[in-house]
């Protein structure tokens, strides 16, 4: 099979980026928009074509999906063995990700034509979007872990640029900075993990690392550090990078703030694509984790489980609709991470892996839909706080319907896409660890509750008086909504177990009704509760929040994690490290240097006193010295 055209998937966005970035301001804004959108449209078609070709034309070789290196070039040689190659690798998950990224990105490109219309810096927005698409696509097709790191960083910087798109708004600047630094810190772990792993295995290539030949791990397997083997360390550190990008606890703090960016950006980066990079990373390295560092996998499962519960609880208390969605994203990614953590490798054992990818796939559609819907609402209401909304169903029917579909999907209503993927995750968790299963089961209920709290508050609830009547979004915005809604409904019917599995071999999966029915029920309970409390304006929520008192406040303030971070960075690092270092440098180190200068000057001042200008004194010193020298050299030293 010839896949060499896939290089276009990367070249088109970067070309669009360069065009818009360097020449964008020379043309009318719409030119940049069209260049970006059309470029991404081509990428979108190519990606789907690749997927079709990969899965259905190429198909399986020896009963498993092969890893195809479509192209590869040496980029930077470190040592004889360690070379970064830039290339394109096609395997089930990268092809699946290509489809997800290009589809969502294409939708967002179209949507933004309407959403960003008339904004200052329209061409800048499109150039950044193209840069992001390039980086994200490069990330998913990476042939080796270092290429992934390269694009990982590029994705980070695109995210930084897009969050800070409204750069004159201090909160946006702060949020972008926070996002970048937090992920950067996590990436430090990633980098060290790569260094460790590559040093012991002497390779960066995924094909080698995840291949069947485990002999490359032998040199490091016996080594341990602080009670854990080097590969456990390496995997944990690599996961740290993934946790940073995927905003897992405790690196989650940047994601809610990242909502300062334009809403399409939130949809693209902070819901559907970039934040799942961590999941993708773990999935990509899954054999390494599974065979070399099962302990790390266990940690991953717990981190995922905890984050999903934690974020879901916070989501119930937030009022900013984008923040609710952000916490919901966290919670859903927690699901995916957990699914990977509890997964096995072969056959039906690997259901967690499959479910994770499946959920990633479906999540991309419904979460992008939710965000774009939220964008349409914000566009209409000019606010993103729930209290300013209510009764919008009358004004924005399309948005309403699509939003409702997305809410139903995320709540796990049967026969919508997330029902299937979530069910698989619960199955995997159930077989692995009952505690984690219980947590996830609970989270499913909470998810349904807060999503419908959001839905009812926006579209039902009180009839808010608006300054000017909200209107339905233009076609260019509603069409992507509708397309995504269709995706949300039907994405669940893709036979994932046949296509994307941990060991590349398909297996049979069935819906386990023993788990599916209770999970649907708890979802319905959540929806019902939300309906009860928020469909009409009631005082129940207020009363509950008062009844919960301190707990509510803690949750509302996101468990004060941000404040703890702020304390550590602002107070400890700035005041207790940086400032003393600066002081030390100015006063001790430089002081020593100045001190040497000072000593020289002062002693010179003292010595110059000898040059008193009194002739007799000179004479005396001279004579005395002569006498002393004679005494010494003529008499004492013989």
């Amino acid at each position: 099979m010839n896949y060499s055209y896939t290089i276009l998937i990367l070249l088109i966005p970067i070309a669009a980026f360069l065009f818009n970035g360097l020449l964008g301001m020379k043309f009318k804004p719409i030119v940049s928009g069209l260049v970006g959108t059309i470029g991404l449209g081509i990428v979108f078609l190519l990606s789907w074509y690749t997927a079709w070709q990969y899965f259905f034309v190429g198909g399986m070789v020896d009963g498993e999906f092969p890893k195809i290196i479509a192209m590869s070039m040496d980029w930077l040689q470190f040592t004889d063995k360690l070379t970064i190659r830039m290339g394109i690798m096609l395997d089930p998950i990268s092809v699946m990700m290509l489809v997800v990224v290009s589809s969502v990105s294409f939708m967002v490109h179209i949507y933004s034509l309407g959403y960003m219309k008339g904004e200052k810096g329209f061409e800048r927005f499109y150039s950044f979007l193209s840069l992001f698409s390039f980086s994200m696509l490069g990330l998913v097709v990476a042939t080796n872990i270092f290429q992934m790191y390269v694009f990982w960083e590029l994705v980070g910087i695109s995210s930084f640029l897009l969050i800070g798109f409204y750069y004159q708004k201090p909160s946006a600047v702060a949020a972008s900075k926070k996002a970048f630094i937090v992920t950067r810190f996590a990436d430090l772990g990633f980098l060290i993990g790569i260094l460790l792993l590559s040093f012991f295995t002497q390779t960066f290539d995924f094909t080698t690392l995840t291949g069947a030949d485990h002999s490359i791990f032998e040199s490091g397997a016996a080594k341990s550090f602080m009670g854990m083997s080097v590969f456990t360390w390496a995997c944990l550190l690599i996961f740290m990078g993934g946790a940073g990008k995927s905003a897992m606890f405790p690196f989650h703090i940047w994601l809610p703030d990242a909502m300062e960016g334009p809403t399409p950006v939130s949809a693209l980066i902070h819901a559907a694509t970039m934040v799942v990079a961590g999941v993708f990373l773990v999935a990509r390295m899954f054999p390494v984790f599974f065979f070399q560092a099962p302990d790390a996998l266990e940690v991953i499962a717990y981190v995922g489980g905890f984050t999903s519960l934690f974020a879901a609880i916070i989501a119930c208390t937030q009022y900013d609709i984008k923040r609710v969605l952000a916490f919901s994203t966290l919670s859903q990614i927690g699901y995916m991470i957990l699914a990977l953590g509890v997964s096995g490798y072969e056959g039906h054992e690997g259901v967690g892996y499959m479910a994770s990818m499946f959920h990633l796939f479906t999540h991309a559609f419904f979460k992008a839909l939710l965000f774009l819907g939220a964008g349409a609402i914000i566009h209409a209401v000019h606010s993103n706080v729930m209290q300013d909304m209510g009764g919008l169903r009358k004004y924005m029917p399309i948005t309403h319907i699509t939003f409702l579909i997305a809410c139903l999907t995320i709540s796990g209503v049967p026969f919508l896409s997330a029902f299937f993927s979530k069910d698989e995750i619960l199955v995997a968790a159930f077989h692995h660890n009952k505690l984690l299963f219980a947590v996830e089961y609970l989270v499913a209920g909470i998810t349904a509750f807060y999503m419908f709290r959001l839905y009812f508050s926006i579209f039902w609830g009180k009839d808010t008086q608006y300054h000017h009547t909200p209107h339905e979004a233009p076609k260019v915005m509603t069409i992507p909504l509708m397309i995504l809604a269709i995706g949300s409904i039907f994405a669940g019917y893709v036979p994932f177990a046949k296509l994307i599995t941990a060991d590349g071999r398909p297996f049979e999966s069935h819906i386990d009704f023993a788990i599916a029915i209770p999970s649907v029920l708890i979802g319905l309970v959540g929806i019902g509760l939300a309906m009860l409390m928020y469909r009409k304006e009631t005082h129940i929520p207020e009363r509950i929040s008062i009844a919960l008192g301190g707990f509510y406040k803690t949750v509302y303030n996101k468990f004060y994690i941000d404040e703890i971070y702020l304390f550590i960075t602002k107070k400890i690092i700035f005041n207790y490290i940086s400032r003393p270092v600066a002081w030390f440098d100015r006063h001790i180190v430089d002081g020593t240097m100045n001190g040497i200068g000072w000593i020289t000057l002062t002693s010179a001042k003292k010595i110059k006193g000898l040059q008193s200008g009194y002739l007799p004194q000179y004479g005396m010193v001279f004579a005395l010295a002569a006498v002393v020298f004679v005494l010494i050299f003529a008499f004492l030293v013989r």
Partner: protein
Amino acid sequence: MALNVLMFYILSAVIVIFSVLTITSRRILRAAFYLLCVLVATAGFYFMVDYQFMAGVQLVLYAGGIVVLIIFSILLTSHISHKFAKPEAMRLVMGLIVGVSGFALSTIAILQFAFKETENAAIKVDMQAIGTQLLGTGKNGYALPFEVISVLLLAAMIGAIVVAKKGK
């Protein structure tokens, strides 16, 4: 005791006593006079060793020239009756330390050192010998230093005039 030996010790005594007086006298004109005495005694000493020309120069230049110059300048810059304050104790002590220790050292050195005379016969020192050698250009001729000294003297003379000239 031979007369010339006695004469030498008298001259020595004069030199020693008047040197001390020169530097201790608190009246400056007297100091100049004591200096004159020292110089004259030195001249006597030259006579004793049969260097008449040297002694003459000493008398004319030193006693006659320099001391007179000094006395003129004293008269120009000081009151005759002016009496100096006693020198400060510190300086006195320092001066004495230097002087006494230096003198002691020199004396010890002089007494310890074995001086060796030349074997060659002495020559007669007369004006003619001095004159030919001083202006000679051959071996042992001093014409060049002599000329240099004369230039130096000229320069000193002009310099002195320029320096001492009343400013504008």
